[in-house]
């Protein structure tokens, strides 16, 4: 081909690629603008107050995102509280050289944990409804009976509610935490461990005193990424949390709601102002997730040797 034609082909091809990259940026801007425009009636009418307000009666135009926001944060934080120790434990199990766990078996365990991440959310929800909730019944009844005076178990267990949602959510974010903790621990210099053991540390002392602190910041970044996932997780939570958006209930046995579940549950039937309120909720969720992710990226960038911020 003539040089001239090749140059034109080059220009055309390169500008097409540039256009593709531009499209990603446009999508993000459009996402934000679409939410703002659709939420505008609610923003104009309620202002910031809607975020903290409680109450939900669409037929009387009573709205408040407070309970859903509370449910989002509480379910996310509780799920993380359960998943972090287990996830870090799994990561240690997969990176430490235990006599009883040969490399090949470690590989299989790693694959199984990754599989946990690949199972669709709706399958977790299905399992939660038909297996977990019935199995939790006796335990929850016992908790309410024995610890019923305590605010966390003050209400009787109705099935769908905060407790099953938190448990399934914990299971769903576990692989994210395990994967990042595993990578962080695995990327540490071998010398760190060798040096610790050379001065007489046992395995646990090396792990607790040297390896975990050295990997700590990156693990923390990973935990925040997992929190970002948990806050926006929709299907399993919608199917399990009970979707009661009108009041804040401290009891773990009571039904609750999250912003994501509120949108998933009500959007299809919403009309008029309710749509705007749900879009407002979407903006709040976007802000929450963006904040958590920003924090995570900041922490990872701060301590990541390559500086590309990727775990």
């Amino acid at each position, binding site marked *: 081909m003539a040089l001239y034609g090749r140059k034109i082909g080059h220009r055309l091809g*390169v500008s097409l690629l540039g256009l593709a990259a531009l499209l*990603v940026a446009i999508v993000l801007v459009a996402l934000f603008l679409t939410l703002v425009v659709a939420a505008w009636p609610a923003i104009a009418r309620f202002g910031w107050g809607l975020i903290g307000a409680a109450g939900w009666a669409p037929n009387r135009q009573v709205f408040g995102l407070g309970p859903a926001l509370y449910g989002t944060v509480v379910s996310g934080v509780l799920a993380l509280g359960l998943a972090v120790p287990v996830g870090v434990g799994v990561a240690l199990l997969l990176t430490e050289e235990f006599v009883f766990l040969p490399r090949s078996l470690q590989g299989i*365990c790693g694959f199984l944990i990754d599989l946990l991440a690949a199972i*669709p959310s*709706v399958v977790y929800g299905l399992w939660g409804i038909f297996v977990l909730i019935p199995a939790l019944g006796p335990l929850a009844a016992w908790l309410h009976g024995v610890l019923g005076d305590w605010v966390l178990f003050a209400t009787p267990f109705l099935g769908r509610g905060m407790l099953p949602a938190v448990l399934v959510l914990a299971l769903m974010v576990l692989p994210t935490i395990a994967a990042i903790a595993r990578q962080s621990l695995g990327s540490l210099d071998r010398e760190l461990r060798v040096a610790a053991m050379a001065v007489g540390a046992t395995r646990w002392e090396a792990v607790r005193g040297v390896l975990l602190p050295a990997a700590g910041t990156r693990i923390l970044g990973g935990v925040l990424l997992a929190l970002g996932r948990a806050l*926006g997780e929709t299907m399993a939570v919608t199917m399990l949390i009970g979707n009661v958006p009108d009041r804040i209930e401290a009891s773990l046995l009571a039904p609750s709601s999250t912003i994501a579940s509120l949108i998933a549950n009500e959007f299809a039937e919403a009309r008029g102002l309710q749509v705007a309120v749900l879009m407002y909720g979407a903006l709040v969720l976007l802000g929450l997730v963006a904040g958590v992710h920003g924090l995570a990226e900041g922490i990872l960038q701060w301590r990541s040797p390559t500086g590309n911020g990727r775990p």
Partner: protein
Amino acid sequence: MAIAHRQRPALGKNLAWRQGWGRFWTAVVVLMGAIALVPLAILLGYVLVRGAQRFDVQVWTALTPAAGQVGGGLGNAIVGSIVMVALATGFSVPLGVAVALYGTEVCRQAWIRAALRLAVNVLNGVPSILLGVFVYGAVVVGLGWGFGAIAGALALSLIMLPTIIRTTDDFCQGFPPEQRLAAYALGATDWEVLTGIVLPAALPAILTGTMLALSRAAGETAPLIFTALGFDFWLRGLSGPAPALSLTIYRFATGFDPNQQNLAWTGALILLLLVLLTQGLARILARLAPPST
């Protein structure tokens, strides 16, 4: 490293006690592994056993039943999911590869690369339900295209995009510069290097990314609620409400009809098999073409 000084091993203590303490924590770590794997085993077992109860030919050929109806299957939902995921793959793979190539091969300004990476990270972090709400606002209502397979596929493609960009990007970053330079030395333009050298080499990586993205998109439900909407009949074209397997599982699982609930389990089994297949393929492909560093 300062960390090493912070907690010196307590050498003064009794060695047996320290070793015992270490063994205790080894046991704790094993227990954590069990806590993670036991629910997985229970979940897989239930999906397998309950899903197999209705895993017959009718599932693939019959329409989704209404509540109270006997029999029926998931045929229309499966077809709807396949069509939407295929469309989403068609949208997102060329776009994702183009974006990754632009970021690693074409763009010379560091800030644009950084901005692009940030944009991809942000897109990856946006909860999938918000992508659904966005496509509803922008495409279903905004462009007036209405509910349908196109809107559903667009929402799914936004979910697939970051995965495809990242896997392609990772490969290109590790691609040896010698090969590129050799092509340039022979007088190739950027575009010729891209299409003739980098792209063919990146193919396995792109396929790996596509498989990973497929495995996520196939089970996604939240973004389809307000874009595909769900439908109890066969797909009647790309516009108009479209059925999807994941949506059907959601609806049947939250309903009260035992027949529908059984079909939800069968649907979950089909999804799970698909996820296993795509994840396995991704692993094999990744092993075939290890990132060349």
